[in-house]
C-alpha cells in the first residue's frame, strides 16, 4: 500500500490519473488511498511532482504500517 504525506501534497490528482487500478482518488480536499486495490507498482511515486508518496511493500492494512507512517495519516 501507499501513504501520502498530505502536508506536502499539492492535490494535483496526478497519482490518480496514472494509477491503473483506481487505488487513489480525490475525496473532499485530500487524496484517499484504497489499499485493497493497490498492487505496490509505484507508478504514482514516479509521477508525483511533489514526491510525497511512500510505498509500503506487501502491507495491506493500516494497522501493519510502521508507527512513523501511521502518524502522518
Amino acid at each position, binding site marked *: 500500500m501507499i501513504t501520502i504525506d498530505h502536508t506536502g501534497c499539492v492535490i*494535483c490528482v496526478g497519482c490518480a490519473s*496514472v494509477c491503473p487500478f*483506481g487505488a487513489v482518488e480525490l475525496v473532499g480536499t485530500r487524496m484517499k488511498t484504497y489499499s485493497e486495490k493497490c498492487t505496490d507498482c509505484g507508478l504514482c*511515486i*514516479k*509521477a508525483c511532482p*511533489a514526491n510525497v508518496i511512500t510505498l*509500503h511493500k506487501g502491507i495491506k492494512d493500516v494497522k501493519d504500517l510502521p508507527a512513523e507512517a501511521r502518524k502522518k495519516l
Partner: protein
Amino acid sequence: MAKNGYDYDAIIIGAGPAGSTIARLLAQNGKDVLVIDKRKDIGSPVRCGEGLGQREVVAMGLDLPKEVISTPIVGAKVVGPNGKEIVWRSKDTNGWVLERKMFDKWLAELAVHKGAEVRAYTRAVDLVKKDGKINGVRMEKYGSDAHDVTAPLVISAEGMEAHIARKAGFKTVHNLYDVDTCYQYEMQEYEHENLIELYFGNNVAPRGYVWIFPKKDKKANVGIGIGANLAKWKKNSGIMGADPKILLDDFIAKNPKLRDASTLVDFGGVISVGAPLDKFVDDNIMVIGTAAKQVDPIHGGGIALALEAGVMAAKVANEAIEKGDFSKQKLFEYEKVWRAGPGKKVEKRLLLRKVLENMSDDDFNHIFNTVTQQDLDLVMQGKFAGPVAKVLAGRPQLMGVLKALIS
C-alpha cells in the same frame, strides 16, 4: 423541467472550462442541466500555467472580464541549451495569462446565469444504470449520504482523473510516457516584458522545458514540465522517477533575476501530452476536454481545446435531448466534428512532440545559432522555406525534424 420523468436532461461532471461551457450552452437553449464539481471551491487548486491564446477566445465569442485576466502577452522568448535567445514580439496582444481561479468561476457563473444548476463540493461516486443503460449519477454532497440523480445523458468533463468515464469503459488511465510531471511557483518580483519565456535543454528540463509566464504586479508563474517516464532521480521508498521540483529549484537558483524572488504559491500537476481517447462517446455518455485527453501534446495546454469541445458537444447534446436520441451513433456526431477539426491539429502536434523529444542539445543549439530575428518574423508569417533551408544547410540530418514542423 426535464422530460420523461428524469431529474435533469443532462448531468455534467466537472465545472472546469469544458463542463461550464457545455452547461451554459445547453441551459441557454432551455435544457435542464446539473453540473457537479468535487472541489470545495470551483477553480481551485490551480494546476496549470494559466496561458490562453487570443485567437481561441475570439473564436469562442467570449468577452473576458478584467478580473479573469492577469496580464496580456505580447510575444515569446525562447532560450536554447547554449543560452542563446530568440525573441519574437508583436505589436498587439496575442494572448493572456489568466487568473485561472477567477476564469473557471466566471465560466461557471455564466452557466448559472443561463439557468444551469451548479453544485460544488459534490462528488460523483458512480454511474447509475437501468436495464444496462446509463441512467444518471450517484453523487455525494460532502457531509450527506450518496443519492441517485437521473438523466438520460451524462457528460464527463472530469479532467485528468476521469474516474467516472473510466467506469463507463473509456481508457482514461494515463501511461507515464504520455504525461509530463510539472511543478510551478507563482513568484514575485520578476521584471518581465510580458513575454512568454521558454527554456530548453536536457540539463534544464529533459523532454520538456522551463516556462516563465508573466503575471501582473511583477509576478510570474515559473514552472517546469518533464517526461514522467524519466527515471533519473531517487524518490520516496527508493523508487527511481522524475522529480521536476529539484530541477526547477536548480533553475531558479542559477537565475539571477529569480534567485531572490519570493514564492507566493506552490502548484504541482501531471499533464497529458499523449493522444486523445480512442472514443469520446458511448450510449448516454459523452467525454469532453481533458477527460478525453483533448490536450496539446507540446505544451499540455487544455483550456482552449476544452472550450472548443464544449461548444461542439453542446450542439450535438442539444439535438440529442430534443430528439430523445442518446445512442452512441447520434452522440458520435460530436466526435466526428472534433476529429476532423482540432483532432487533426492535435495529431500533428503529437508527431512534432515525438520528433522534438529525440532532438539533442546539439541540434537545438544549431537551430538557436542559425535562426535570426528576421527568420522568425518570416516563420510567424507562415513563410518557412527560407529559414528551414538555412538550418538544413548546416545540419542536413535535421531534415526529418523540420519536415514534421512544416507538413
